[in-house]
């Protein structure tokens, strides 16, 4: 079993305090929802967890060890997939930068092969998000941090995407932290819900 542990994390943008004395832990067989008001620091917390922000106080560990170099077992999925894709890369390269899933998985996530030869600007947000989810679900991933990943999708796509993501995560024993301000969504898909205000001071 893998345990993700966040201890005494502090982070500010300049003099603007965002996270104070944050403590949190979860296991790799859990799907946990993180709820908080807009602007409360959820996205910042996600970036701290996944190495996008490196200058913070405190520790983020997996089984007591700080992830170091190489592939980060804690992977972030962004609200805006286009921001985490090189605009001049074709989708095949975008996906392959992490790994190449087999045909079954591609079908499961509804990825059409013809999209492989397109650029990110030539796909819709929902289509791009499928790629970024699958990209994050690399076999070496132990935890997925999903930051508002379905906010800009329609209800049908949203349901499909969560379905595929959670199925694969449960199968591979990947822990998922679902960040959202959509309480209904969290209630529907998560084992339990955590409030950001409860885990910070």
């Amino acid at each position, binding site marked *: 079993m893998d345990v993700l542990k966040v201890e005494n994390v502090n982070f500010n943008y300049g003099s603007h305090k965002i996270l104070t004395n944050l403590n949190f832990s979860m296991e790799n067989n859990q799907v946990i929802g993180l709820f908080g008001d807009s602007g409360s620091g959820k996205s910042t917390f996600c970036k701290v967890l*996944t*190495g*996008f922000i490196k200058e913070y106080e405190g520790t983020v560990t997996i089984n007591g060890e700080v992830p170091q*170099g*190489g*592939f*980060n077992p804690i*992977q*972030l999925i*962004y609200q805006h997939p286009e*921001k*985490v*894709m*090189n605009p*001049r890369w074709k989708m095949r390269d975008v996906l392959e*930068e*992490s790994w190449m899933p087999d045909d079954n998985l591609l079908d499961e996530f509804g990825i059409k092969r013809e999209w492989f030869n397109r650029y990110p600007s030539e796909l819709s947000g929902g289509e791009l998000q499928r790629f970024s989810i699958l990209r994050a679900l*690399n076999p070496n991933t132990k935890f997925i941090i999903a930051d508002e990943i379905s906010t800009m999708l329609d209800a049908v796509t949203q349901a499909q995407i969560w379905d595929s993501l959670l199925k694969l995560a449960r199968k591979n024993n990947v822990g998922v932290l679902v960040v959202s301000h959509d309480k209904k969504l969290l209630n529907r898909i998560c084992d339990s819900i955590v409030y950001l205000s409860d885990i910070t001071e």
Partner: protein
Amino acid sequence: MTKTEENKQGILNINLRTKTLIITGIALLILISVFVSNYFIDHTAVLTSNFYNVNQPPSFEHWFGTDWMGRDMFMRTLLGLGISIGVGAFASIISTIVAILLGVFSSVNTVVDEIVTAVIDLFGSIPHILLIILVSLAFGGGYYGVVMAVGLTHWTPLARILRAEIKKINTSEYIKLSNEFGKSKMWIARKHIFPLIISQIIVGVILMFPHAIMHEASISFLGFGLPAHEPAIGIILSESMKYLSMGYWWLAFYPGLSLLFLVLLFDLIGENVHKLLDPQSAQE
């Protein structure tokens, strides 16, 4: 959009692309033939005096006329343009190398970046002609001095662009993600950064030519550049100044016009290559 409209637009796009390619091709052909012609022209024959033919105005036999030593001005101009292209090419190579090195250095850390920016600003703040003359003198003047001076002073705009571009790419989220995928710095530079800056480098190099050529001609004209025995355009122009008052206008007019034409050709190629390599940003 209907199907036919789409098709029409497709054809238009192809046409635009073909047109750009043709323009670039023709411009390149002219440049290459000017440069190559230098190797087929008998330099000594062109540059020895022929006193039966002095100061002839332009004619079918001597397109650009002849000078006070009876030399054919068309041939002299061709040789001069050849030198200009040579100097431009060499200057572009040196300047590009310097610009790339500085651009890459600047991404190492913030201290290095500030040093690089300071160096770029320093070079950018000295009047360019003065800088060229100083560097040329520092290298002992002459042909070598000029070529080094023109080469070592034209990297500032490209270095500035590359630095800004690399910085922008480096702070983007997809580079951060690439780090989290465990990709090495080298891998990121090769796969992410290089392909994004290569078009800027190519266009930057081409657009450096006209600057280098004009600056070489200017300082040769001012007497700080190439030695007087070289058939450079700057030398031709400065010599012909003495004869302008006697009404031998063609001595300066055609060589000057040719130089201008050469410079415009490079601008044209640069612009079109930009459109070809980078259709999106060229439209913006």
